[in-house]
Structures are given as C-alpha cells and as structure tokens.
C-alpha cells in the first residue's frame, strides 16, 4: 500500500476514521489541534458525527453518552484539557464503557507551554480520576505506530470495555513521517448486549456508574479488577533493541524512546554494550519483561521527559535489584540524543550504586549543570 | 343524578402525601389511619360516597398510585 507523509495528529485522526469511529468530540488545544481540525471536515464528509464541544469537560461527556450506544467514539486533547476530563473518565471507567482518548502531552504543570513533554504519565497511567480504575495506555513512538495503535486502541477498548488512551507528545503530534494507513473498516452493525440504543423489542436497558449500595459497587470493582488481570495477561507490548548481548539497558517510551534509540546506536558505535527496552503499553506496564531483562544487566538508565514518573514503575519491575540511573529533561525541554548518550556513558563508566534514589542523583547532576 | 365512579389506591405506591385528598373536588378521599403500608405510610382511600370518577386525584398523585373508574353510564373522559 502507498506510504503517505503525515503529521502524527492527522495520521491518528485518519486511522481512527478507518477503524470505524462513529463520533468524535473535542476542543482545540495545541499541540493537538490538527486532530480536531482534520475530524471537523473528515467526519461530516463521511456522514459521521463531529462536534466541537464547548469544552473538554463537555467533550468527554459527549463521548460518554455516545459510547453508551455501543458505537466507537473518541476524543483527543492535551494536558490541561485532559485534566478537565478526569471526572468523565472515572465515570466512563465505572460504567465499563469502551472509549478511546488521545493525549498529546505538552509542558506543564498549569498552562506551562506547548512544547513536547511526558508529564501526564501518572495522571494517565495511575489514575488521574477518583476511585479505583485502570486504563489501557498505548504509547507510540513514531507516526506508523500512532496509526497502528490507534486502530488497536479501539479493538482493546471494546474487548475489555475499557478506557484506552493513546499517549503521545507534541513532538510526535507535530512531526511528519511516512506511514501506511489501514483499509477502511466497515461501520459497526452488531452491538453488545449492554448498548443503550433504544433498539426496541427488548427489555429496557440502562447504564450508570452508581451503586448506592457499597456491596454492589464492590462487586463491580472486583469485576473490573478481574478484567484488568486479563489485560495484564494478554495485552502487554514493548519493543527491545540490541538487548541480546546488552550489559546495560535504557528504558524509555514514546518520544524519549526514539531519542534514546539514537543515543543507544551511538553508544553501540562506541562499543558500549547497551540496549533499549521501549514499553508500548505503559499500562499495563511490561513489568515481567523488564524484570527478566534486568537479571542479565549490570545497570539500567531510565529516560523520560518527566521527573521520574515511569521511573517508579521500572524500579518496581526490577524490585530494586538492578542499579538504576535516571535522566530527563522536563517542562517541555526535549533532550538531544547527545545528552542521553552522555548519560549512557556515565552509566557504563560507573560507579553503580543501589544506595539512594536515582531521581535524587539526577537532580544533583542537573543542579550542577544548570 | 350525578355520574358515579370510584378509585383504587395501590398500596405499593401510595405514600399518604394527601395531594389527592386536597385535590378531590368531592372531598371523598382521606388517609386510612387504621392501616399502615409496608413502607410505613397511611394510604389514601375513599372515605365517603360521591366519587364522580372525575380523575383529578389521578392528576395530582405523584406516585401514579390511583386507578380511576367511572360507571359506563358516564362518558369516558380522558384526564388530559
């Protein structure tokens, strides 16, 4: 099939269209806006639903309503807008509905800036909304993956009745790369037995996140946890580079993942036996894979565009059994491969330690540097 | 001779709020104080003759607890 040169934001939009998204609801925000703009003409052109909502708060609730009908629906935004969706996301999770969300992260906290960042990791991965729930989170690191995982997101969301987030940042949203788009899927015709669509000729149905009786709520929560265990068993994805003979490994996802790849290649060229593990599902997190890999390693380097959020998950994965260092640029600053390369060199040079916290050592180094 | 009718109050719904009592133009409705429903309310009931089956009680009942009949003689009038 023909390759097209597309912006990440637009590639995701077209991928969603081809995955059979029936309705899109969103609100403009840089660096995600092209996704909404693309949908604003593409969806009506196909006779599908598009609404530029009055806010992200309204958008997520439009998504909530549309999802109740069993159709494939989505929204997209960037950090501050995503924060406004937290109540809605918790409701959607509590109602066990399939929904696809795209977060094109920018520098924060607050209004911050519109540069690429990964500071929403905890919010998206560990639950920014209230109550116990989990979201499936896919983190592409190039435009082709953005396309592929957007399609996958719809499938997983439906399979597990789960909120599924495609998590990227302004860099991937704004850059152009060649990609192959999937064929156009036919629109959904069969609907699950929970779909509230006034189909008629059947018992009435309703969808709600209320369980005034705590015992009932607990049953619901256990059902969701059970489903989550299945997700953990079936859906973990990650990509390894140069790990066969690696004595050291970098762990990074999304943009920092591809930046680290450049650094790892350069390090290999210098003869440093380093590999890269790039989580694709950051939730569920590839805990086993990292633990196993860790057993053969002398040291690890976690690279993020946030202040050590994923770092905690990596440390938990290795159960603190592997000497680990941390490197990050934050607040919208994108690290250059050279910086990561330096961090790899330092790691290889040692000394390696299990004392103290990698974040503290990183802060100390940065303080000297800046 | 006036139209005759009667009403039946469903106890599973009635909460003894008396909105029907106050609304009945014939003043033939009241609460049955000798009787308590499962939910602990005194239900409404006909306490006198003279129900015309006008349906007004049904218009005010928040619980849709009242069924209203009128003798065939009378014309069936829908209350809306």
């Amino acid at each position, binding site marked *: 099939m023909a390759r097209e040169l597309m912006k990440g934001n637009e590639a995701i939009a077209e991928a969603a269209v081809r995955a059979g998204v029936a*309705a899109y609801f969103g609100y403009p925000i840089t660096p995600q806006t092209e996704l909404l703009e693309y949908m604003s003409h593409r969806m009506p052109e196909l006779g599908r*639903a598009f*609404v530029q*909502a*009055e806010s992200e*708060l*309204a*958008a997520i*609730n439009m998504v*909530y*309503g*549309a*999802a*109740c*009908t069993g*159709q494939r629906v989505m929204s997209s935004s960037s950090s501050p807008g995503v924060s406004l969706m937290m109540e*809605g996301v918790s409701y959607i999770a509590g109602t066990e509905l399939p929904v696809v969300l795209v977060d094109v992260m920018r520098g924060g906290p607050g209004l911050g800036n519109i540069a690429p960042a990964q500071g929403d990791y905890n919010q998206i991965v560990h639950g920014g909304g209230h109550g116990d729930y989990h979201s499936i989170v896919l983190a592409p690191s190039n435009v082709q993956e953005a396309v592929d995982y957007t399609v996958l997101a719809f499938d997983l969301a439906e399979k597990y009745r789960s909120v599924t987030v495609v998590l990227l940042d302004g860099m991937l949203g704004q850059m152009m790369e060649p990609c192959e788009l999937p064929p156009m899927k036919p629109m959904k015709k069969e609907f699950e037995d929970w779909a*509230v*669509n*006034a189909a*008629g*000729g059947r018992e*009435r*149905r*309703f*969808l*709600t996140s*209320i369980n005034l009786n705590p015992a009932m709520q607990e049953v619901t929560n256990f059902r969701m946890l059970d489903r989550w265990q299945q997700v953990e068993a079936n859906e973990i994805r990650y990509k390894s580079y140069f790990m066969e003979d690696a004595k050291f490994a970098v762990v990074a996802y999304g943009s920092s993942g591809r930046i680290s790849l450049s650094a790892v290649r350069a390090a290999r060229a210098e003869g440093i036996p380093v590999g890269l593990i790039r989580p694709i599902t950051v939730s569920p997190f590839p805990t086993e894979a990292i633990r196993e890999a860790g057993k053969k390693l002398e040291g690890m380097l976690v690279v993020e565009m946030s202040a050590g959020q994923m770092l905690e998950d990596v440390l938990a994965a290795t159960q603190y059994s592997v000497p680990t260092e941390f490197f990050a640029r934050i607040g919208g600053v994108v690290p250059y491969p050279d910086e990561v390369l330096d961090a790899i060199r330092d790691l290889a040079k040692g000394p390696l330690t299990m004392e103290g916290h990698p974040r503290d050592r990183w802060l100390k180094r940065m303080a000297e540097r800046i | 001779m006036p139209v005759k*009718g009667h009403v039946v109050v469903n106890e*599973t*719904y009635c*909460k*003894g*709020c*008396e*909105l029907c009592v*106050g609304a009945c133009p014939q003043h033939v409705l009241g609460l049955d104080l000798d009787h308590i429903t499962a*939910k602990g*309310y005194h239900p409404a009931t006909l306490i006198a003759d003279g129900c015309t089956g006008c*349906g007004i009680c*049904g*218009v*005010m*009942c*928040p*619980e*849709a*607890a009242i*069924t*209203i*009949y*009128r*003798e*065939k003689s*009378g014309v*069936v*009038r*829908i*209350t*809306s």
Partner: protein
Amino acid sequence: MATMQTENDALVYARPESLTDVSTHYCPGCTHGIAHRLIAEVIDEMGIREKMIGVASVGCSVFAYNYFNFDFVQAPHGRAPAMATGVKRVLPDKMVITYQGDGDMASIGMAEIVHAATRGENITVFFINNTNYGMTGGQMAPTTLPGQKTTSSIHGRDVETQGYPIRAAELLSQLDGSSYVVRRALNDPKNVRLAKKAIRTALEVQARGLGFSMIEFLSICPTNWGMTPEASLKWLEEKMIPYYPLGDYKVHPAVAEIKI
C-alpha cells in the same frame, strides 16, 4: 394514556406503561413524581416508549432510570445535556431527553445547557426547579428565592453576597438555537394539565426535528422546605410563581404550527 374496559366500569385512569412498577424513593408528596408521571403518560400517548433514551442527572432524580420503563443513561452532575448530545448525534432518530434539577442544570451545568441550546441540539430537557439542592439536604441553589432559608443560607439568601436567582427559561429563550422554552408549575390540577400539554409539545418538537426544547417545572421539596406537601404547594403558588412567571418564553414559528 392506557384506557381499557372492565365489566361494567370504564377505566378513566391507570398507571402509565412507561413507568416501571417500582415504588420511588421520593419523599411523600414530592412533585418529581408528578413530572415523572406526566412524561410517562405523554410517551404512552405518543407510542414512542421504545424510541426513548433518557439521560438522568445527579440529584434526587438520579434514579430516574429505575422508574422510567425505557432505555436510560446516567450523567455526571450537570453534564446531562452534553451526554444527551453524544447520544443524539449517533442516534438522531431516537428521542433523547434529559431530566435535571436546578442545581444540576442551572448551577454546575450552566455551560452545557447553554451550549446545547445554542447548538439547537434536537433534544428535550425537563428541568425541575425546586429552589434548592434536594438530594444533598437542602443547600442554596441558583434558583433559591431572595431571603429564602436553606442549609447554606440559614439567615435567608442575601442577594448582595450570594447573588440573584437565575430564571432559566428566560435565559435559554435568548439563544437562537432554542425552539421551545416554557415554564409550568406542578401545584394544582389545572397547571399540571398545562404542564402535560407542554411536555407533549416539546416531544413533538423533537420528533419533528425542530431543535432544542426545554420545560421548566416549578416543583416542591416538602422535606427540605420543612413543610407538608399541601403547604408546599401553597408556597409554590404564592412565592415561586410571582418570581418565576409561568408562560411560553420561546416558541419558534415552526413550533407554533404544531397542533395537539
């Protein structure tokens, strides 16, 4: 309304099919019940029960989905119009209604209702104005009357510091997207009958794709008002109606042609 014949009696009125046979959790005399009943009656009469999708809000009517005998979803506090928009946009042929309290629609949900109206969303909004937050125990609502005592205005609402009541019908009638916006009261048989007619008109508006319709129902909350249901109806008539005049605030020409 279902009418069926018995031996020698004619059935004048019976519980509508569009209500489930569940006893509500509403307090005795609460006119939420009358609003429920009227909506159900109209839906029966129009024969659209199986085309209905309701959106419950957060308030005493949060369990509306237990009482209405058709499909329902339940929205976060104030977001029912957004959720209804989502439902309607993917199922334009279904009849979509929201049922919201005054705290829900006029306070936290103000942005969503104004924008649903200005977009001319083809949905019908049933708005229960009982001048307080019933479910949470009677705090001040945007609709609380000046001087009215609530648990968060114990000396009576002071307009200087706590602001003025919002007249939702007047406000929404300002928007070009709204087609039918009226205010009715549930305080006596006459007004209840007028309320029912309005419900019929509003649903006809939606059925004909004429756009956004909203009915504000002046309603009582005996429990939090600390009055008997009877006294509450009187208070509604004497205090609420003067401040919230009944009437039709927006009737789009196309709507005016609807004959019921």
